């Protein structure tokens, strides 16, 4: 079995383009992670907290699942529990069939890859379309994802463009922007027409029954907001106890995954469309999947269940960097995959992956929750029947258990070495199983006078008092600064600009003028907008009415007109919304969908204008939750944190904006 990995790794090493892409991934992602962590002085403390949050859940799983289940029911989410992949697929298919759907749109979910949901749907005549750019590319090519965060990691821009030309007859050149535009228009049609959307879940919150979805492109929002039916699929271990705990995890996940301080979109979902909501699926389901997890929770590999699937260990691993994701032949590759695959899918089939490591520990260092991956790999090796050089190890151990035998072995090795040495002190060719060593490096000659003979006379001197030891040094945590309100708005502006957003500061009285002016600057002919729920929006809408400027207040009808009205809303180029809150540390705007506060203006148009009042700018998510946000969040059906325009870097790490959601985000910051 080792041979299979080695064979595939060998092919990967012989492919210079793949090597270039893997190097690019490792270098760019690691640099981004380190830079992101430098900006977070309390990272060490956060990682400790994140670890204990995850431990709390994994080691008390049943109780949290029960709480989560009852909160989901309160929220109106229909819960289905699946023991294994077959049951999960059957349940998903049942839901899809009950809505007479023959098409589903999916956002990226490694769990559905694990379960083989697409194949199960296709076998039942249901078409499943992946809408994450990387997944879409991989699906078009009939391949498996090469990385849990970056599925098309193994493909060059040219290959991706060629795939679009040959598979879809698209007319485009080898350019990420053009590919993006193509995908936007093709998948937009899917989002608007699909009767069912399937997403994964990044975190579930037990205490509030929250489903948290983290995406950059906006496809996750589309799939969870536009279709009449939303099916979320989640592993039972992906829970955190409270919203405050979620805030901790959200500080780490994007930083470790892509080096972003936050992803473009974080959705917090609490149920289906409620009376008065302008949009949202009438039915939301959660399929909660075990598929081996509760069994693993009882074993030494339980620690692997702390994983939050950020992919950071893959980016840090020197073996992954050479072999690439496909060499692991599992949905979960890289260091954590070498632990998860044997734990979930069988030691027999995947135990050999644990050999693919030098135990260098780069994975553990890169892990946001400090999973002892080297220790877990050692454990897999110990339990695996595959024991490389087992006889050699047994012989060596037998020799080493006796200093006399050890000395004789040293003599024999030194003698043998002298027969082989071509250069003084170093051997260029070794025999037998050691020949692999000297294929590309020299080996040192065994010494004819090992240290033990040189120091034979250095014996323990007369009794002495036991020495006192210095304590081992620990580094104290850095203090966290608090910002004044002025600094907060400055930081908000700076962070949002870093993300490619625009900030226009204005006074209350001139705000309406500035917003209307902006519409003309943008050349807009219509506006998709919130209703007059607050004074500035009221004034803007009044002014536009006086000027005869057409304004659409979206309200998605149920039934056959649904698609037509969505399509109509989708043609409006500019959206206008207010905001519930904003966060300085990440340049985030918070919106929640409710009566006259549609989420569509922040999702469908090319440009999203948002009105934020400076008094609503909080230092961060945790600060807002403490200041009353928690109660607010739990009462919403669909709340989203928006940080900059929709973006992707799925094609060769080239950052492009506006893949599915808005290309442009303009915030009017009212002083």
């Amino acid at each position, binding site marked *: 079995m080792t041979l299979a990995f080695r064979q595939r790794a060998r092919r990967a090493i012989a492919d210079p383009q793949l090597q270039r892409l893997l190097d690019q991934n490792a270098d760019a992602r690691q640099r981004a992670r380190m830079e992101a962590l430098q900006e977070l002085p309390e990272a060490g403390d956060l990682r400790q907290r994140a670890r204990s949050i995850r431990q709390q859940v994994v080691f008390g799983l049943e109780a949290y699942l029960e709480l989560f289940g009852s909160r989901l029911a309160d929220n109106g989410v229909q819960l289905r529990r699946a023991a294994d992949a077959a049951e999960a697929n059957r349940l998903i298919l049942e839901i899809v069939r009950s809505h007479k759907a023959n098409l589903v749109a999916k956002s990226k979910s490694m769990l559905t890859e694990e379960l083989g949901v697409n194949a199960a749907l296709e076998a039942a005549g249901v078409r499943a379309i992946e809408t994450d750019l990387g997944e879409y590319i991989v699906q078009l090519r009939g391949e498996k994802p090469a990385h849990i965060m970056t599925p098309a990691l193994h493909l060059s821009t040219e290959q991706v463009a060629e795939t679009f030309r040959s598979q879809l007859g698209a007319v485009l050149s080898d350019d990420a922007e053009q590919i993006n535009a193509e995908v936007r228009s093709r998948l937009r049609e899917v989002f608007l027409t699909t009767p069912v959307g399937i997403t994964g879940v990044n975190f579930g919150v037990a205490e509030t029954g929250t489903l948290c979805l983290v995406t950059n492109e906006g496809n996750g929002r589309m799939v969870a907001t536009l279709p009449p039916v939303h099916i979320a699929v989640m592993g039972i271990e992906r829970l955190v106890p409270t919203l405050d705990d979620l805030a901790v995890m959200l500080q780490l996940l994007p930083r470790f995954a892509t080096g972003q301080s936050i992803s473009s979109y974080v959705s917090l979902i609490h149920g289906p469309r409620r009376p008065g909501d302008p949009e949202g699926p009438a039915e939301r389901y959660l399929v909660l999947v075990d598929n081996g997890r509760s069994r693993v929770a009882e074993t030494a590999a339980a620690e692997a269940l702390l994983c939050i699937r950020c992919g950071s260990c893959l980016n840090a691993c020197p073996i992954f960097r050479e072999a690439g994701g496909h060499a692991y032949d599992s949905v979960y590759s890289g260091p954590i995959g070498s632990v998860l695959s044997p734990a979930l899918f069988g030691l027999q089939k995947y135990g050999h992956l644990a050999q693919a490591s030098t135990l260098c520990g780069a994975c553990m260092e890169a892990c946001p929750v400090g999973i002892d991956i080297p220790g877990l790999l050692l454990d897999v090796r110990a339990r695996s029947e595959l024991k490389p050089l087992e006889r050699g*190890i047994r012989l060596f151990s037998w020799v080493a*258990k006796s200093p006399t035998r050890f000395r004789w072995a040293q003599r024999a090795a030194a003698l043998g070495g002298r027969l082989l040495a071509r250069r003084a002190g170093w051997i260029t060719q070794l025999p037998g199983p050691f020949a692999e060593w000297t294929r590309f490096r020299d080996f040192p000659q065994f010494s004819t006078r090992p240290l033990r003979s040189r120091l034979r006379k250095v014996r323990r001197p007369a009794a002495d008092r036991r020495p006192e030891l210095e304590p081992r040094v620990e580094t104290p945590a850095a203090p966290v600064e608090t910002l004044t309100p002025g600094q907060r708005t400055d930081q908000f502006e700076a962070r949002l600009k870093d993300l490619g957003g625009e900030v226009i500061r204005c006074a209350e009285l001139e705000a309406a003028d500035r917003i209307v002016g902006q519409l003309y600057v943008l050349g807009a002919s219509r506006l998709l907008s919130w209703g007059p729920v607050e004074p500035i929006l009221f004034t803007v809408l009044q002014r536009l009415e006086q000027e005869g400027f057409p304004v659409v207040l979206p309200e998605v009808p149920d039934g056959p007109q649904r698609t037509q009205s969505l399509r109509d809303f989708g043609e409006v180029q500019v959206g206008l919304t207010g905001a519930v809150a904003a966060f300085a540390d990440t340049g985030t705007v918070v919106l929640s969908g409710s009566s006259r506060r549609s989420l569509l203006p922040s999702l469908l148009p090319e440009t999203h204008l948002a009105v934020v009042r400076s008094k609503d700018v909080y230092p961060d998510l945790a600060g807002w939750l403490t200041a009353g946000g928690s109660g607010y969040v739990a009462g919403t059906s669909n709340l989203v944190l928006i940080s900059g325009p929709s973006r992707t870097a799925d094609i060769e790490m080239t950052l492009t904006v506006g893949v599915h959601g808005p290309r442009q985000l303009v915030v009017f910051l009212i002083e």
Partner: protein
Amino acid sequence: MRIQLFATCLVDSLFPEVGEAVVEVLTRAGVETWFPPGQTCCGQPALNAGSRAEARRLALHTLEALAAEDVVVVPSGSCSQMIRHHYPELLADQPEELERARRLADRTFEFSEFLVDQLLVADLEASLPLVIGYHPSCHLLRGLGVDRQPLRLLEGIDGASIERLSPECCGFGGLFSVEMPEISREMLERTLERIRNSGVELVAGCDVSCLMQIEGGLRRTGSPVRCSHLAQLLAGREAGLK
């Protein structure tokens, strides 16, 4: 102060020169050093190969060999880590042995860590007018968190200019080096390339296993750059492990 030297099997058998340098440096620092004759190998190869029973036997053997109460100094981050972290874990279900393993773990120090953190030594009056690249070995850096200690000692060498090389694995990994030779080779080549690009004239480190992989590669590619264990440089030896 008096310490017992746990030389490691590689230093004992392949690089006794490193062991002698360790003794010389410690002596100069005012420490009495002795060599417990029962010592052989810490058992890490067996642990890494998944043979926990063999690893446990060698752990017990080493516990016995190092039974004296003296502090143990190990010229290897990897073997120190084995004793400090893996012995207590291997012997977790044998309460008496576990207690002995914990006591051993508490008084075991890697060479540079012992000099800097325990003896509070920084300058050993060595001199070497070379550009020296420091290779942070994985288990030393990530297993023990030892990094500033060797750097401080290197910076104390008169005339030397020190550059910390990137802390990426050299591709040795024990059995990995012969079991996955293609990947090991790529990782080694990457390490050699970093060394070439950095323009260092000598590579220093605290683990002869990694240095053996690196110098083996440097020699094979005809590079004039050699590797030295930190102790060899502090003792004023010429460049090269042997």
